[in-house]
């Protein structure tokens, strides 16, 4: 087809697409509280199509200069499908800023408009490849803009810590993320979380834990490989053979590095239990496996040994003899102390690594140990819950990352108890233990501090416990909370009265003007765009057309971005057409512009809140005064 037709088709396509976009955002802006307007689901496809169109257009534009043509089109296409270059080039090369900005431009599948969390996450992965304080600073400065770091943000901060070498702290955060149910967090995040946690367990030779993490979805080639190796290391029946091992190795990353490991795993033979195993010898085996390397059959052997020891006449006689030899010593006490210490050892092995009580064989000692372990765990969960409750009552809030750590600990404790719960009463007591603290924790995080993701995770977890405990008295309210936390509803604060920092009448006039003007221009240009083809069918017009349409499209965001600021003692209420959010004074920075215009810059706001806003004052003098009254302000780069 000839250039004429191409020109026509292209411009029409461009106009229609951009107009649709503008129309949608306009309509949505009329619906109150409709976040879908600002975070259209078709966002990423739209950007893709935009870049594809660009590629085609470049291709057509630079026909005379083949080199430029090739370069530009390729760049556009690369941007259109940017996941691959980012994952294969930028992140491994450790280009923090580049991968950040590229992701920023092309968008991240898991985040929405304006959210810098997805880019930050990818940047942090790059940072892990080439740790540098500058990069870490760069990423954390981005993360500071958010009141609600979604799992992406939390994971990003964890990776930053890892790059900084704060290993334990980072792992605490990741464990917190690891307790999230499937589907809450983006796959990309959970893959990384599971990989790191499984690897960390492998560094502690805690192979059971490796398997536990590795079999969680989403699985990755690396976790599959680790799982296979762990099974070999445990020497359990049905461990993968050499073929499966090599197959998984083939798919896993860093083959050169892992090859030696695989060879080692194939060569390793776990020692089997000696056939006649004396009670004390069983203890020795258990001790040799401590802290994390003992298998169920060793624990079982130890417990059985304990049982034997309990009613073993000649052992008792032996102790008696020695007691007599040593003088006035009660052999009875000695025996009970020995048995007690053995019991505590076995309990220790189960407790330290959170092993299931199912490992304990039936029998008197087994039962006693089961009770003991269960009580110890319940006690711990109780302690954590109490501390949480105390902290909340005293309103001693922590940074979001620390909150995630606390949450992770409590959730872990609960999960262990839940796994050991056999009777209905176990579930009931577990739920009753953590119900209240979880309730107030979730409520505060979700509704008071706008941390929807964490709050939602808490409520969903609580709901699960509630259902398995059949505690219907609490179910309804918990469900409501979960729903409320799930919807990106307004922060449910009671109406806050306060002093508006500018003159409302003028504000509304401006807004009305903006609406009207944009509407007129919109429809005008719609028609105008279609006329291009017949009036001036050449390059310049095409360019102008494109420029105008995109400018027009952006203009539609303007009314949505004009804010009314109200000062209250609880902070500054920022009221938009659709959103209201209360920010602390230090998180607002104002700059006075011409015609009483105020540039408003917010930080530490939820991701659904626009960050760059305008406000209008009666006069530029007043605007300057207001801006001065807000200074000094904390304004983050970016």
């Amino acid at each position, binding site marked *: 087809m000839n250039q004429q037709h191409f020109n026509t088709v292209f411009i029409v396509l461009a106009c229609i697409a951009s107009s649709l976009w503008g129309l949608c955002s306009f309509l949505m802006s009329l619906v109150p509280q409709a976040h879908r307007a600002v975070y259209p689901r078709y966002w990423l496809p739209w950007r893709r199509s935009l870049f594809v169109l660009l590629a085609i257009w470049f291709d057509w534009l630079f026909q005379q200069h083949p080199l430029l043509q090739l370069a530009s089109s390729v760049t556009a296409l690369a941007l259109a499908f940017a996941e691959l270059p980012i994952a294969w080039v930028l992140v491994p090369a450790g280009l923090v800023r580049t991968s950040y900005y590229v992701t920023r431009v092309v968008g991240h599948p898991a985040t929405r408009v304006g959210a810098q969390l997805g880019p930050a996450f990818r940047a942090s992965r790059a940072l892990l490849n080439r740790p540098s304080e500058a990069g870490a600073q760069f990423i954390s400065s981005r993360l500071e803009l958010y009141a609600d770091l979604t799992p992406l943000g939390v994971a990003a901060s964890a990776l930053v810590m890892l790059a900084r070498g704060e290993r*334990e702290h980072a792992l605490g955060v990741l464990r917190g993320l690891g307790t999230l149910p499937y589907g809450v967090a983006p796959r990309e995040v959970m893959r990384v979380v599971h990989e790191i946690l499984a690897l960390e367990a492998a560094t502690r030779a805690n192979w059971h834990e490796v398997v536990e993490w590795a079999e969680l979805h989403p699985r990755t080639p690396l976790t599959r490989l680790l799982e296979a190796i762990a099974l070999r290391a445990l020497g359990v029946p049905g461990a993968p053979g050499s073929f499966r091992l090599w197959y998984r190795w083939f798919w896993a990353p860093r083959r050169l590095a892992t090859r030696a490991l695989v060879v080692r795993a194939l060569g390793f033979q776990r020692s089997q239990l000696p056939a006649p195993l004396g009670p004390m010898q069983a203890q020795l085996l258990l001790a040799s496996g401590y802290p994390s390397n003992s298998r169920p059959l060793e624990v079982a052997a130890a417990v059985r040994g304990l049982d034997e020891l309990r009613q073993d006449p000649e052992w008792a006689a032996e102790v008696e003899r020695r007691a007599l030899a040593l003088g*006035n010593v009660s052999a009875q006490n000695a025996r009970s102390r020995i048995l007690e210490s053995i019991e505590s050892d076995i309990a220790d092995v189960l407790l330290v690594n959170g092993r299931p009580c199912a490992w304990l064989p039936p029998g008197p000692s087994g039962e006693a140990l089961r009770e003991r372990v269960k009580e110890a765990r319940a006690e711990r969960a*109780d*302690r954590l819950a109490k*501390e949480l409750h105390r902290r909340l009552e005293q*309103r001693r809030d922590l940074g979001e990352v620390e909150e995630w750590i606390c949450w992770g600990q409590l959730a872990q404790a609960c999960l262990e108890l839940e796994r050991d719960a056999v009777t209905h009463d176990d579930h009931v007591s577990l739920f009753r*233990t953590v119900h209240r603290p979880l309730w107030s924790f979730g409520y505060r995080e979700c509704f008071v501090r706008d941390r929807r993701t964490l709050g939602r995770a808490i409520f969903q977890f609580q709901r699960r416990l509630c259902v398995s405990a059949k505690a219907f*008295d609490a179910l309804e309210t918990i469900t409501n909370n979960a729903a409320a936390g799930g919807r990106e509803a307004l922060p449910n604060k009671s109406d806050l009265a306060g002093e508006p920092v500018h003159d409302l009448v003028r504000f509304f006039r401006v807004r009305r003007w903006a609406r009207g003007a944009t509407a007129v221009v919109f429809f005008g240009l719609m028609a105008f765009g279609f006329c291009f083809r017949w009036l001036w069918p050449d390059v310049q017009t095409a360019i102008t057309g494109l420029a105008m349409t995109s400018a027009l499209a952006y203009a539609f965001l303007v009314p949505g971005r004009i804010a009314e600021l109200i000062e209250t003692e609880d902070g500054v209420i920022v009221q938009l057409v659709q959103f209201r959010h209360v920010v602390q004074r230090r998180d607002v920075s104002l700059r006075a512009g011409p015609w009483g215009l105020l540039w408003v810059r917010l930080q530490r706001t939820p991701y659904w809140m626009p960050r760059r806003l305008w406000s209008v004052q009666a006069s530029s003098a007043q605007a300057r005064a207001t801006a001065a009254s807000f200074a000094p302000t904390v304004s983050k780069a970016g």
Partner: protein
Amino acid sequence: MSSKRSIFVGIDLGTTNSAAAVFDGERVQLIRSAQGSGLLTPSVVRIDARGKVTVGERARRLVDQDPDNVKSEFKRMMGSQQTIAFPAAGLVRKPEELAAEVLRSIREDVKAQTGILPETAVIGVPALFELPQTAATSEAARLAGFERVEIIQEPVASGLGAGFRAAEDVGSFLVYDLGGGTFDVSLLEAREGLLRVVGHDGDNFLGGRDFDAALVDHFIELIRAQSGVTLQRDNPAHAHAFRRLRVAAEDAKIELSRSTEADVFIADIGLQGQSVALSASVERATFESLVAPLIERTITICERLLQSHGLVGAGSVGNVVLVGGPTSIPALRARVAQALGAPFGEGLDAMTLVAEGAAYYAASSGLDARGSGAKEAGAGAPVWLQFPAMSSDLNPFVVGKLVEASSRERISHVVISRTDGGWASAREVVDPDGTFAIMTNLVARRPNTLRIEGYAPNGDGPLLLAPSEFVIVHGVTLGDPPLARSVGVALANNGVRVFFDRGSPLPMRRTFAVRTVETLSPADPEGSLRIPVVQGEFPYAHLCRLVGAIEIKASSLKSPLPVDSLIEVTIELDRGGRLAASGCIPSTGDVFGHVAQLITGKVVPSELAPRIEELRTRLRDTRTKAFKHKAQKAITVLSSAEAMLDDCAIATQRAQGGDQDAGERAQRLLIDADALIAEGEGEIAWPDLDERARSGLTRWAGWIAEYGTAIERQALEETTRAMEKASLARNAREVRHHLATIAHLGNAAAMRSEGAWESELDYQISQITKSRDPKAAAKLVAEGQRAIQVRDKAALEAAVRGLWELAPGTSDKTRGLGHWSGVT
């Protein structure tokens, strides 16, 4: 005595008198006071107007002339913040400094009689001294110029002294140590020449002074009879008179130990305004009748100790060693002999036994008083020898190391032989690293001089080594000095994590992992984690004495420390009673040092009375509960606690009269009573909880039956069942949770009743002052009242809920009790 021989110095720093002994390996020599007060140096210090310090006998003689500037019995104030004023010189001294004066004079005496100014010594302290007091004693020794001291407990020392004197193993024996101010009784056991403290008991506030006090009371009666004047202890105006009476009583007491009658005459007991004379003659019988109850107290303590170690009835111990001045009272000796049915260790001077024992201990732990600078260098290859200066073992090992690498080629074998020619070892091969260990052979109960020689690989020799000779004394030794009171870490739940049990040998070092109970974030500046180190035998932290604390400032952390993270706490105790503690965070490797605060709080008498009252109330309602649950054991415990509280009240009254000692005593009684009451509460804790559960159930079930939904009723049934089960299993934690659940259900139901929200609003109005944000609360209250007027139920609910949000958090009382510990 030549300085070639090493000597060992032991000092008994007593409340009233101090003594010192020197042991040279063969015989022990008691140091006589240069002021001719015999073997004893009175622990009395005087500072006159020119600031000149007088110590000992001379100072004691001046008690009557110038009582304000002559101070004694500062020992019992050691380790406390109290200071002692000398008005004449306008000086203020710490007890340690006065003790240092006494020690310095003793040091001088030792120099005068042995020609050696001792650099190191062993000092005896009462068994019930706690770390602050022990550390203060070490400090006093340092001030007195000793470069190194070790602390030994008096009963152990006297036991060592007695055991050393005893020809053969005496088996188990009892040390009955009645000092000026403290009574210690300890059960020791000597087997295979090794002395072991089986256990000890005692009363920190029972001693010769109480005997005097009994006599003083007698005098008061006499004075009232003679001149109708009534003296009150809590009247400061009478303090001087009491001092005089006490001196007189002391003399009379000593007199009565020898003769059957003592005459007391004071021309003027020194009351302002009037002159009252006291002239009386006290018969021994009267005195004995006066002190009989005190003696009985000591006997009961002895029996308690014996019973606690399964030794019952007379003759259960092989030997009884009497220590301390008051034990010379004939009546006391008779009663003790009759009660314990064991012979007294003969030939033992009750006054100086502690000093002797301390000297022996110095020898057994190789504390050569000549100090470090006394290594005589001889010709020959230098060898570094390690051997016990004193050994209870007939075949101790001598371990050595050839210091110079060159000599390691030259010398391949080493031989040790006794100079008396009785024994010589085989040729011992020297290890490549120049070390060797040889088992020697000693003659029992006397110093053995041993010669050491080297032999070349080709067998020629003997080659000279330096030192070529050394001495090992055979005799009773003490393995390691035992710790007097358990040391541990206070926990957030007011519990104690014991690190060292009482009796564990010093020096000691232990590491335990504890978990934090709150999150520390570097963000908040005032956030900090506290790990208090406490000493005491009680299971509750608030009853144990705080001897130090590890502070972890949040600001000093790099990354936040989440709740429930591990901290490895290490506590070290040396033989001088000095404590070092440190906390390590394994995840980051940061180590936090120990902030010492080794001082015992000053007792403020005015603070004691309210605490007594508080305890009485606690006692009362605990007892009513105990009667309700028919907890017999609890009732008996509580009655004894009440008796203690009565004593405590009396002691407090005295303390208000300025008697520091009584204050200390009152404090201790208070603590003991508290412990007993806590025990009683523990006894009835379970039945009480059970009872609370039942009453709660009956109370809430009504509401739920009336206003509850079907679901709530079902939940109630379920929870009730679970609670029954838990109470059968006696699982208090479970029961509490279920009770809370029932209460919540009941509340939910009750709030549906007519006028519930209104009354709740009224309640919140009454609580408004405690609200977190009174301004906002006031606003909500106003809204609520408006809502009531317009009958807007929703608005009312909203207001009340808002008020609930603003309600203050629960105060963490237990944390306060546990010395604000941040770990569990």
